[in-house]
């Protein structure tokens, strides 16, 4: 695992990647310290102050119900990051384990798992999540569930590919010759060597999931008002696009910045991997 040390040095040289990490830290702070950073209660409606332009009192202006957009955007960080981290944590763990088992054992189990992967991936990205979230109903848990059900296959595919090539390597054969149990081999030799690409994929996936979740809410299917969520805030701003564009501008900007942060960081991490693993991760 001496590759890890090389990674960090190379990573630091990549300015965009470092910027990404800094942004992530900033956003996480916004999420954690939201109550201290937002000037107003994100749910408080002041119908006398609807659709006000940005001012010193309301840095991003107010929305159609007189709520402070800045506060809502800040609290929205909690929702988006929360969904991103939860979904990626769940899918990366489940998907990786499945990939390791599937790749290592091979046989019928492998075939079945891969068909499962193919079937889920046969639906274009958002469509399956749309249907699941749409029919289950709106809400945080349903969004997390829907996105988890659609995002796990990318990890399985990636890890399985790696396991297949790792299986043939000398140290695995050596371990077998020493009569190590399969479980031991998987845990000690196979899994650690897959982790790097999983970490890269996971980072990039957080970006994906955040956009998907926002898209679902934008369509009216994910997280709905009054919960502050960037996607649904965009949707609420549409009728006022001409008269009060700030309703649409700021939430969208936040989505872009957040996604950019994770993309930069993930790209930076990926560039530190060797080219072969690099290409596999890119395919995922």
């Amino acid at each position, binding site marked *: 695992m001496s590759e890890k040390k090389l990674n960090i040095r190379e990573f630091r040289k990549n300015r965009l990647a470092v910027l990404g990490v800094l942004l992530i830290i900033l956003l996480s702070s916004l999420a954690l310290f939201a109550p201290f950073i937002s000037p107003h209660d994100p749910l408080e409606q002041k119908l006398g102050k609807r659709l006000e332009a940005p001012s010193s009192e309301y840095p991003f202006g107010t929305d159609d119900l007189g709520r402070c957009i800045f506060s809502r955007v800040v609290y929205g960080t909690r929702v988006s990051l929360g969904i991103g981290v939860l979904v990626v944590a769940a899918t990366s763990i489940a998907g990786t384990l499945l990939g390791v088992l599937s790749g290592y054992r091979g046989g019928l189990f492998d075939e079945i798992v891969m068909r499962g992967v193919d079937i889920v991936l046969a639906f274009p990205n958002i469509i399956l999540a749309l249907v699941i979230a749409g029919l289950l109903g709106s809400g945080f848990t349903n969004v997390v569930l829907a996105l988890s059900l659609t995002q796990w296959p990318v990890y399985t595919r990636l890890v399985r590919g790696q396991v297949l090539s790792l299986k043939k390597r000398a140290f695995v054969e050596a371990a077998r010759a020493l009569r190590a149990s399969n479980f031991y081999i998987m845990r000690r030799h196979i899994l650690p060597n897959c982790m790097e690409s999983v970490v890269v994929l996971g980072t990039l996936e957080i970006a994906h999931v955040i956009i998907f979740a926002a898209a679902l809410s934008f369509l009216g299917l994910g997280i709905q008002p009054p919960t502050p969520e960037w996607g649904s805030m965009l949707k609420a701003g549409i009728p006022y696009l001409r008269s009060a564009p700030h309703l649409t501008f700021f939430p969208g900007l936040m989505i872009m910045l957040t996604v950019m942060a994770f*993309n930069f960081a993930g790209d930076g991490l990926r560039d530190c991997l060797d080219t072969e693993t690099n290409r596999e991760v890119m395919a995922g």
Partner: protein
Amino acid sequence: MWNYIAKRLLLISVVIFGVTLVSFSAMYLAPGDPAEVIAFARYGQDLSAEQIEAVREAEGLEAPAYIQYLNWLEHVLHLDFGKSLISSDDILEEILLRLPATAELALASLFLSLMIAIPAGVLSALKQNTLLDNACVFTSLLGVSIPNFWFGLLLIWLFALTLRILPSFGYGSLENLVLPALTLGTSMAAVTMRLTRSSMLDVLKQEYIVAARAKGLDERTILIRHALKNALLPVLTFAGMQLGYLLGGTVIVETIFAWPGIGKLLVDSIFARDFAMVQGCVLFIAVLFSLSNLAVDILYAVLDPRIRYDKHD
């Protein structure tokens, strides 16, 4: 080569079978008794028990799930997707009615994206680390991160509301197509550009390029005859991923611009709780996607002889 195609077709059949299962189960996702949900969607608030039972009988919902599935599957194989639960229109007909609109949007976006991305990617790779390259890379990073629904709204704000030179919704003329295609196309272009660039960079390092140079060929011939062909191959494989993005993206773009395509039909039927329509749409889209992927795979196998002999999963 036919071996390869046969294998892929077999695989696809298994996958499509699974897809039908998943599509069918959509109905069971919504909480509550399906008969009640359908009756509510059809008749509104005041439901009598008889109405619910009538719906249950009419839609064959008393039968156990697997029997319902098999019935549905049998109909589907005869190209009968059933009727909409709300409007009683023939589902397949409704889908096919909207297919041209989606196809128009998809093709226009794809065309736009390739027109932007491939030249940009190639140039960027050729002039690596120059200002042009850095600008392109940064723009594409931005483009990949920008949510297409926000970008679409920005375009509407700029071109439709402020400058007033393009319509913000509607379907029919070329001007209606511009903003939707731009929204979808530029997002895709960002991804494709990155791929083209990195693929081109890889190819340029290869031995056969060095060999061609050693042979004394001029840069132009090298570029066109050797580099481009090989660089574009991975872009083709990723075309599969692009197709997925395209089909998924149409859902959002069609909703924003009120574009009467399949994506909008899907979203509308989800809201209307028209399970039958949702099943039909999802199935249609997934099958379309699978077949397109198959076509791309076969095309790739035709273009790259290596894959035919060295196919490993």
